[in-house]
């Protein structure tokens, strides 16, 4: 076990023991990507849904065994299924409109960069509308959630090869659209 895995193991044991600091670190590291994923996939109230996801994690943590990567993908499995449940409950299809109006976080806080990013994000949102649900899921999990191909496959319950194909087609469509619009940063 390398140092990184040993560190995660300590974190996991502390979380299982009910240590506040461990849960604070888990939430600080993963709540942002989870919220981003839920928002980008059209969750009605992504912050509330994120809270539900992490409370569920707290309830189920005693049964978890695995490394840091599997922990991350486990959390997104819960988030993904909560999202599906919400869609079923609300009886609606996922939307991408939240890409335009959601809270934005830019590391530098540069006004010009933010303005350009907003334009680009709007372009991306438009292109996203033309993608299939599965393609959107893959891009959101890969880009926003930061999951690997294997982790994305795990979350979506598909084979890695299928994820690669979905990802390739979605990215190709995105790039073509951006090239045609001549959008640059």
């Amino acid at each position: 076990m390398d140092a990184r895995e040993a560190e995660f193991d300590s974190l996991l044991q502390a979380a299982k023991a009910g240590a506040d600091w461990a849960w604070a670190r888990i939430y600080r590291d993963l709540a942002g990507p989870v919220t981003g994923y839920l928002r980008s996939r059209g969750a009605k109230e992504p912050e509330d849904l994120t809270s539900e996801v992490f409370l569920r994690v707290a309830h189920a943590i005693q049964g978890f065994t695995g490394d840091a990567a599997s922990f991350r993908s486990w959390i997104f499995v819960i988030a993904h299924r909560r999202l599906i449940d919400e869609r079923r409950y609300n009886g609606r299809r996922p939307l991408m409109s939240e890409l335009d109006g959601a809270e934005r976080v830019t590391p530098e806080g540069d006004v010009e960069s933010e303005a350009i990013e907003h334009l680009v994000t709007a372009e991306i949102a438009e292109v996203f509308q033309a993608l299939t649900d599965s393609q959107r899921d893959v891009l959101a999990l890969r880009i926003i959630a930061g999951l690997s191909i294997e982790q994305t496959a795990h979350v979506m319950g598909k084979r890695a090869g299928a994820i690669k194909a979905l990802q390739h087609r979605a990215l190709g469509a995105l790039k073509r659209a951006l090239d045609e619009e001549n959008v640059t940063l």
Partner: protein
Amino acid sequence: MSDFDVNDTDMAPRSLTPQDVELVLGREVPEQDNLARFASVLNSLHHTRATIPTDEAVAAFSTRAAEIVRANRIHSFGTQAPTKPPTQAILRKRLVGAVGATVLLTGMTGVAVAADAAAPGDPLYGLDRAMESVGVGDGGSPERLAEAQSLVEGGQLTAAIAHAARAVDANSGTDKQGFSPEAAEAVEALRSAAERADLADGEGDDPKVNDSIAGILNQIAAMLDSGELQPSEIGARISELAREIGRGGADEKANSSTEPDPGNESPGPPAETPVGPPDDAPAGASAGSPSGPPEDVPGAGAGRP
């Protein structure tokens, strides 16, 4: 030629190779100018989506999560009574999971669930209710259902079911509480089964009905464990199985009406109780992610070391 150039749809990329994809999604900025721009766009998407939780949110959640974990650990230790036979302990564990799933399927919205663990009959229950009356503890249906879970952990299975059913009754029509029609239907069916054996008042628990309900919950738990059933599908399955009990009870009642037995005042459960899923299981049971683990079985599948 790329593998994706052949027989693709109109969405098929014509300029990206699989290597390009790895580059634009990688941590390093690609050298090619067009790919570098594209990678920047994707990176901006990440930055604009992934919010950073505030310190206050982190502190609030960590406190809440730690409380939940500690409460669950106390419950876990408290139910490991040495006098219980192993098989009963295993069954109880599954039932706890199943009722937890029932609680889950009602779509709780992240309010207080486990910290206020006092159940009816417990010394702390009065205090718990008093706190609720002033708005502490959020004594809505989620809390009632959490109490039901506590009752299950204490071995009072049928009372727990009735308690859970009352939680739904008390909140019918309250959309924000998060009860889906499916969940309400499921618990209503269980409530009917419980009432049939005079379970609602906590007296006269019928062991056969007990077994029936236990069988249902046990079956649901097993299906969750195997990934055959997703949490969102539990309601429909519970409802289906519970109706089997109801139908069996009705049949038995009809039979007893033709052969009256003054000495037996209990309506009683069916002689043969369906505890497993019927042959015509809903297709949804295997829908979703057949290769993925259920969320209640963390670490299973690819992630398990």
